[in-house]
């Protein structure tokens, strides 16, 4: 029997995946364990390995196709198994070959706008649309409850193609929405529309921190640290001091987290990821720096594993490297806080009765008011500031 190559479930709540790349084609010989295709989930690209030795055949899902989990997308044929003649188990389940219930073959939908908005259409309308390669989603139905009828399709076909008639807007391009962009959009809309945000700002004196970092980085053999590594550590220790802010809102109750797992926003081409450094409060700075670097590299290569970005109890978003002085960030649900970090800038500061040149870094804490009240947020920000301004406390 040929071996089925199915679309695997790589994430807890994954129902379907998009095939982003095939590394083999029909007729290629593969060894068990060789990467044969890649799938894109909400957050990452995953490699899928050949489940056995043999010759690839019957690849049924093209790049870009959204395939439900568990559906066969190809088969591996053994020695002497005829690719053309053999009856595949999912093609014609007969009483004889049905030793175990197999997932039924499911129509593989082209990646459009998700499965929630499957258009209502009559069989005849679908048939005509199929014959002309027309996407039904592009049509308006004149039937009851918007049902697309044959007449609607014919009308669409008989009117000249819109791009020939009048391009909708010559000075803009339509960029297709990929899985990551859609996920970002959905999560941020959810956050901004359901989480009551409030914002607290502080200008932290980072003169000592910058000096300390310079000293550490000058020592041969010690790991190189970024300002952000200190920020991550300081936020984790601050949350230890104000544990009521290391929490998440849920309908069942407020979940207070035992360890501080910090999501770090990493910009990538076309979007961003938020991989998680776990139990930050217990890790030395050097280890935090190394973990962040590994996660950021993996994110940029789109090789994060679902376990790399699951969870997180707070987030650090740092735009200082772009020269941004201050900004406010949107909370990453179900977390209750996010810290937006600006650039360290030299600026006039008042010291006693004098004005002198100091270095300040603007930090803005966004809080979910359902979990963190103003005073608690203020305590958290004060604790953070105190740690950042006395950075030796981050070392011991």
């Amino acid at each position, binding site marked *: 029997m040929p071996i089925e190559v199915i679309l695997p479930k790589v994430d807890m709540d994954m129902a379907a995946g998009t095939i982003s790349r095939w590394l083999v084609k029909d007729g290629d010989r593969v060894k068990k364990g060789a990467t044969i295709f890649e799938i894109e989930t909400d957050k990452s690209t995953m490699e899928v390995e050949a489940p056995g030795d043999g010759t690839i055949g019957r690849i049924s899902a093209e790049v870009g196709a959204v395939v439900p989990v568990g559906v066969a997308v190809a088969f591996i044929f053994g020695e002497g198994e005829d690719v053309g003649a053999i009856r595949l188990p999912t093609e014609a389940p007969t009483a004889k070959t049905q030793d175990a219930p197999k997932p039924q073959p499911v129509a593989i939908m082209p990646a459009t706008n998700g499965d929630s908005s499957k258009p209502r259409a*009559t069989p*005849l309308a679908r048939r005509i649309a199929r014959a002309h390669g027309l996407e039904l989603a592009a049509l308006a139905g004149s039937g009851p409850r918007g049902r697309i009828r044959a007449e609607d399709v014919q009308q669409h076909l008989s009117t000249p193609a819109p791009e020939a008639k009048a391009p909708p807007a010559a000075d803009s391009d339509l960029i297709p929405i990929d899985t990551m962009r859609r996920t970002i959009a959905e999560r941020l809309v959810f956050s901004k529309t359901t989480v009551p945000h409030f914002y607290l700002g502080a200008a932290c004196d980072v003169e000592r921190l910058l000096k300390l970092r310079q000293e550490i980085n000058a020592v041969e053999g010690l790991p190189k640290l970024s300002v952000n590594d200190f920020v991550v550590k300081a936020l984790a220790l601050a949350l230890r001091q104000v544990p009521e802010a290391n929490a998440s809102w849920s309908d069942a109750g407020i979940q207070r987290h035992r360890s501080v797992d910090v999501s770090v926003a990493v910009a990538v081409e076309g979007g961003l990821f938020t991989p998680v450094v776990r139990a930050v409060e217990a890790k030395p700075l050097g280890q935090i720096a190394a973990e962040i670097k590994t996660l950021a590299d993996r994110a940029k290569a789109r090789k994060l594993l679902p376990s790399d970005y699951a969870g997180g109890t707070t987030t650090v978003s740092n735009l200082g490297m772009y020269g941004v002085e201050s900004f406010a960030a949107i909370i990453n649900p179900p977390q209750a806080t996010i810290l937006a970090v600006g650039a360290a800038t030299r600026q006039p500061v008042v010291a006693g009765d004098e004005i002198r040149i100091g270095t300040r870094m603007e930090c803005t804490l966004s809080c979910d008011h359902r979990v963190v009240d103003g005073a608690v947020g203020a305590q958290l920000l004060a604790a953070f500031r105190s740690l950042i301004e006395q950075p030796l406390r981050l070392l011991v």
Partner: protein
Amino acid sequence: MNAPAIRELSYAQAIQEALAQAMDADPRVFLMGEDIGVYGGAFQVTGDLVHRYGEDRVMDTPIAELGAAGVAVGAALAGCRPVFEFQFSDFSALALEQIVNQAAKIRFMLGGKVSVPLVMRFPAGSGTGAAAQHSQSLEAWLAHVPGLKVIQPSTPYDIKGMLLAAIDDPDPVMVFEHKLLYKMKGDVPAEPYRVPIGKAIVRRAGTGISIVATSIMVHRALEAAEILSGEGIDAEVIDLRTLRPIDTATIIASVKKTGRLACVYEGVKTLGMGAEISAMIAESEAFDYLDAPILRLGGAEAPIPYNPVLEKASVPQTEVIVARVRDLLQGRI
């Protein structure tokens, strides 16, 4: 003496002519039924046949349908060609053992060595004020039994030709005759002729919707189509004529042309002709041509009422067919 080639006869007269011609042509043909002799039949279908063919060939039976039907099945097995009349189709419930368990199965259970060339006639349907036990349309019951053929001729021409074809047939054929059709007149050739069992006919060609109808509903569907044509709706009306075996090809071809299907029948809507035709179309190549939901117009889920207003309301009427087909074509269904 030259009889005109084609005369106008009533549906009942067309039956009587077919029975007479069958008895003329074949001494094995004889008739059985309650009050079909001197009385001439409850609907005067057999009329004076008893005087022309004698009591041995036009045989009054006691009011004992099961026993009489057993006699008919036995006679058919012994080489006769009995034509059995139920006074009302409703009374066939008493004879189901003979019809369903004997007549339908004997040929199969004896390896094809014998057959049961039996014809049974069932005066059926509502509209005569005869209430729940004398008004039913039970054809779907018998159409569910392999081994039986079930026909519902809708015109004088068809009843004569199909009845003669039924008497020729080596297997049991159940003939459902709507009581309101008996007085209906139509052109009928004087000579014997056959209308094949198992062939539907397109009574009215159209492009907008296929209306499949049986028996009296064919006429209501045609009236409805006439009214709808004045509104720009061009309906095709198919007279199914045979409920078993169904002429699927004619219906599939029609639905592929029109993209819409309505089934109109007097039997109870659920699990009736419309259920079968709808499912058949959904399974067929015509599925891909459907451009609207399928419409079923059948009898109400209730015994036929005696009250004449309710009796009328309990089965599809012309104006209901018009309204529902209009709704479908104008996109409200």
